[in-house]
């Protein structure tokens, strides 16, 4: 973690070749949190190791609480946050599930906690592997969810998350998600901001009114106590703050660009969308691969683009409609399942906006579950099928890209019928 080659094209940073987990830890360090509490879990462990090292080396002046489990981690940072502290934690999968009640309480208390979740399959089928099911399983907790595509974006989103969470007009916890294995262990060059620039970026928060704090001896109730009208008021204000966070995130992205020279487009990133006839909608690490395939398809004359979801909660419906309206066909790629619906979760949510899309046809792709690789060939197949849909060909609404058995005519029948009876 020593200073590396100075990148002269991007002032105010230095290039380090680091993993996604290290990028998250450095992002947290740059935000100067008061309290960090966390418990290690694959594929997140490296974050905790890195922060522990920063702390031991005196590079991070925070209270580091090595808790006995994730539930305590979330309760500890929430309490510290309500006392006015800046906090950080990180988890994944089973760990996220083990802090689920605390996650709900944190959101209800409107504690501006910032955490990282390294996406991994949830309990249910034991799989130490990548998937966004843990994100989907917590999507209605009342947190703001941001999703990173590469190591640079992980670091940048952690910094941006503090501006968003702690903004006086928002005060909602933020979870930064990135794919386990494919990003958590990916080593690549990252422009690491200088501390003074990170301080300047975050200093806007110092000029805002102080948020309500628990003070020893002070009389203040804190947390979600309310029935009937009181409950409704708290929930309505929470929902409204989530809605406000959309525009706030766009503002923060612009200010980030002014200081660091990098802009991501806010709630969504549009890649070669302007003249696109067909569009893939994706999120996370798959987007890098999709962009590479889109360039090849464009060279072959296929007008295809990518809409990358960066902010998943609140759902960026308005900007997605504006970007997708009038496209001939849209293929939504989900790295998770939406039990009770055939299509993936993001597909199902975008369906709610179908009438506003001006006749765009939609289809669902499920891929990348349990470490299944979203290969370039898989992406090509998705683009080809979306083109078929645009041309009016008969295609399935839902395609399990890496499980062809799901596309067989009798795939939905029980095994007893397929085998001619038990």
């Amino acid at each position, binding site marked *: *973690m*020593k200073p*590396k*080659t100075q990148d002269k094209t991007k002032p105010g940073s230095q*290039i*380090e*070749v680091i*993993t996604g987990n290290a990028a998250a830890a450095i992002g947290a360090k740059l935000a100067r949190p008061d309290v960090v509490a966390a418990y290690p879990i*694959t594929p997140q462990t490296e974050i905790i190791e890195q922060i522990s090292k920063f702390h031991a080396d005196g590079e991070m002046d925070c209270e580091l609480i090595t808790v006995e489990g994730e539930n305590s981690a979330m309760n500890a940072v929430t309490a510290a946050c309500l006392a006015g502290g800046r906090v950080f934690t990180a988890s994944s999968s089973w760990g996220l599930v083990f802090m689920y009640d605390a996650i709900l309480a944190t959101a209800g208390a409107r504690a501006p906690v910032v955490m990282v979740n390294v996406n991994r399959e949830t309990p249910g089928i034991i799989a*130490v*592997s990548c998937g966004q099911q843990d994100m989907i399983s917590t999507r209605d907790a009342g947190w703001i969810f941001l999703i990173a*595509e*590469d190591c640079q974006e992980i670091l940048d989103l952690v910094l941006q998350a503090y501006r968003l969470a702690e903004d006086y007009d928002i005060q909602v916890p933020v979870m930064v998600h990135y*794919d386990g*294995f*494919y*990003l958590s*262990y*990916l*080593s*690549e*060059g990252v422009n690491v901001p200088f501390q003074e620039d990170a301080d300047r970026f975050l200093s806007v928060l110092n000029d805002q009114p102080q948020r309500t704090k628990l003070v020893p001896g002070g009389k203040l109730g804190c947390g979600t106590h309310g029935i009937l009208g009181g409950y409704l008021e708290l929930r309505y204000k929470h929902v409204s703050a989530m809605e406000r966070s959309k525009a706030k995130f766009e503002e923060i992205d612009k200010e980030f660009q002014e200081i660091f020279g990098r802009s991501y487009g806010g709630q969504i990133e549009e890649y070669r969308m302007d003249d696109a006839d067909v569009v893939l909608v994706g999120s996370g*690490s*798959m987007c*890098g*691969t999709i*962009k*590479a395939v889109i360039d090849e398809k464009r060279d072959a004359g296929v007008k295809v683009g990518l809409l990358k979801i960066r902010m998943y909660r609140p759902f960026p419906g308005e900007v997605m409609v504006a970007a997708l309206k009038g496209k001939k066909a849209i293929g939504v790629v989900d790295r998770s399942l939406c039990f009770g619906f055939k299509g993936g979760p993001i597909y199902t949510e975008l369906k709610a906006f179908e009438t506003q899309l001006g006749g765009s046809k939609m289809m669902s792709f499920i891929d990348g579950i349990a*470490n299944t*690789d*979203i*290969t*370039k060939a898989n992406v090509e197949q998705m683009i080809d099928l979306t083109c078929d849909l645009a041309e009016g060909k008969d295609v399935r609404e839902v395609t399990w890209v890496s499980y062809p058995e799901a596309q067989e005519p009798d795939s939905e029948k029980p095994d007893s019928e397929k085998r001619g009876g038990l």
Partner: protein
Amino acid sequence: MSEVRFHGRGGQGVVTTSKILANAFARTGQFGASFPMLGFERRGAPVTAFGRFSDKPVREKTQIYNPDIIVVLDPSQRSSDAVFQGLLPGGMMLLNDSDNTMNVSHENLKRLGIIDANKIALEEIGLSIPNTVIVGAFARMSGLLEIEPCCDALQDYFSGKKLSANIVCAKRGFEEVELFDL
């Protein structure tokens, strides 16, 4: 872009090999991206890692199925089908082995590098962890890197006596790898 697939076992430094190379490429103003694919980390289990090295930013976040180069740290996998799977015509292979009799063949293999990296590592660092020897041997065999950025990159992973010993490992890998053009 060169796509490289690394094969070894947990504890051999497979992942670190791929990281150091990505680091070395970044130091030359090029771009490197590498990642392993494994579940629980544990010694002795087969480990595969992937490296992409390019003069342009690397965007792909997918495993490598058609490598230009394969690097085998674990000699017991030298003849495994999984190792040669998808090797592109004109491909290269770097093999850590005490047997340099070229007892390896594949129709697409054009260049073979053999180095007894375990022996060199034992002599220099006292441990049979071959990774830094492999880094130097890779630079020489592939022709994609000089040895200097490889040695510079080691500073990010080692310090003190370990650093100087591993720099010797990398340099010996660079000097002592035996190259066979097939």
